């Protein structure tokens, strides 16, 4: 029977020390998930603009498709990205498997439907006459598009944060395509899974605390931004 208090104390000591491995893992986590969320956002916003701008017959079908894509299990995305980047896969030549690149790709693919869905909702929350108001004030086509994005900025930021939170906590898929290589592709979730299996609890708990704190911080930010978006 292990002593829980002792392990927690050791974990806290580990956090207090500037343990390079621990903070390296945290940094990789934030970098990979941050890049994935950014990549997804870069694709999601224009997609959402395309989906939400006009009324067309297939609009409901497109939004329905987006919603169903949100239900695709992460592990399936992991499998697809694995096949894509594996040696004999179509993009095997890029040698991205077991690299942060593969992790960013998989996480971005996971976040994309969720983010696009939230971005569509964000843009639909912009008053319908806002675009016409910009037009009559002399804005050109691109300026109106940009202005519309700006109108939705708080709700769009909330979408970004929600996507980031989703991928930051992803484990299995990240392990599949990243490989959990120490110092390279080891992130908080995969490290916790590994250390727990190894019985190496203090590092696991230390990382767990960081992950929890980041998750809480992100959620607080999300609430704050959603509060502003609702104004």
């Amino acid at each position, binding site marked *: 029977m292990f002593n829980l208090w002792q392990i927690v104390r050791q974990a806290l000591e580990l956090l207090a020390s500037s343990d390079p491995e621990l903070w390296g893992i945290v940094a990789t986590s934030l970098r990979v998930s941050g890049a994935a969320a950014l990549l997804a956002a870069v694709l999601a916003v224009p997609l959402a603009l395309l989906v939400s701008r006009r009324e067309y017959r297939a609009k409901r079908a497109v939004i329905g498709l987006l919603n169903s894509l949100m239900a695709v299990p992460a592990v399936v995305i992991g499998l697809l990205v694995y096949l894509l980047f594996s040696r004999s896969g179509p993009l095997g030549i890029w040698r991205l498997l077991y690299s942060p690149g593969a992790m960013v790709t998989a996480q971005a693919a996971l976040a994309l439907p969720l983010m696009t869905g939230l971005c569509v909702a964000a843009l639909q929350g912009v*008053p319908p*006459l*806002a675009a*016409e*108001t*910009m*037009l*009559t*004030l*002399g*804005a*050109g*086509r691109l*300026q109106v598009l940009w*202005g519309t994005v*700006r*109108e939705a*900025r708080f709700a769009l930021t909330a979408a970004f944060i929600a996507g980031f939170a989703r991928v930051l906590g992803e484990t299995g898929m990240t392990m599949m395509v990243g490989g959990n290589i120490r110092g390279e592709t080891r992130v908080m979730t995969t490290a916790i899974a590994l250390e727990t299996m190894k019985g190496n609890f203090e590092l696991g708990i230390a990382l767990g605390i960081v992950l929890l704190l980041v998750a809480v911080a992100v959620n607080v930010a999300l609430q704050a931004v959603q509060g502003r978006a609702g*104004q």
Partner: protein
Amino acid sequence: MMIAAGGLAKRFAGTPVLRDVALELRGPGVYALAGPNGSGKTTLMRVLALLLPPDGGEVAFEGTAVRIDRDKARAQALRRRMALIHNPAVMLSGTVAYNVGYGLGVRGVGNAEKGRRVREILGRLELDGFERRNARRLSAGETQRVALARAMVLDPEVIFLDEPTANLDPASARLIEAAVREMARAGKRVVVASHNLWQVERIADWLWFLDDGRLTLSGPAAEVLHRGDHKVWREFLGRDNLFNGEITDSDGCKLFAIGGAKFEVVTDLIGKTTASLDPSEIIISREPLRSSARNQLPGTVESHSSEGGLYKVTLDCGVPLVAAITKASWDEMGLKQGETVYAVFKASAVRVWREE
């Protein structure tokens, strides 16, 4: 910028909204687009402002027809010489300064110059110190004034205002009407959609009447309103305080008699005439007022109804007289049915014309 439209037609979901509308904006001035709600005023303005393509007909600027979908660059350049203010106006998310500076920003005006012009225009519309206010947290009157500032700062040649004073407090309404007249004097073409004929009479040089998508009347405002085309007044708003009576001369004073009431008017006419009085020109007073107003009719409070932020109080002064007062006045005075009050108004507030 001269605008001419011909054969304009527009349908929404199969329902015709505009039918064969032809009109011209020649010289500077205030063009009133009057008509009941749902007659197509907003749609017509959006078509003229190149925001909505018509299903039929064309809009020509300086003699050349423009199609929004085909001549995109030209449409965009022309839009930059016009402005349209919706009702209620939509504020962009951000401060008042952001909103008023938006049009300058998209034209590439620098920040210093932008700030200066924004401050100047806000001052002209009595919005000093509003720069940093959240534009989405303004009263209706302030919102409409900011929208006007946002358009005026661009110095457009043509400006379209959709019911600019609907549901506004009288002070904001008066400020906006004054700004409209001022723009016309400064050589702009100002198109104002309104279903308030009193307002049209106050500010318009030219009047178009839109009825169920058709332009049924067009002409100089004074002429159309006063050529005795009683129908215009009866059919649309302004049914209140419309009297058929007789004017007599009493030592140079012209007295208009109707039912048991008599009041002074300013006119050269004598005999059978029609008179109208804007309900918002009437002051209700509990005591007789010592003022320059020539008319002071005692009466009793008959009934009241609220309409667009205003209270319409019907007084029995020998003839039913409707006075429009603000909710604040109504609450403060605490008028009761049957109470004796005085209806005070200037002789010059009464419009008189002869039915033909």
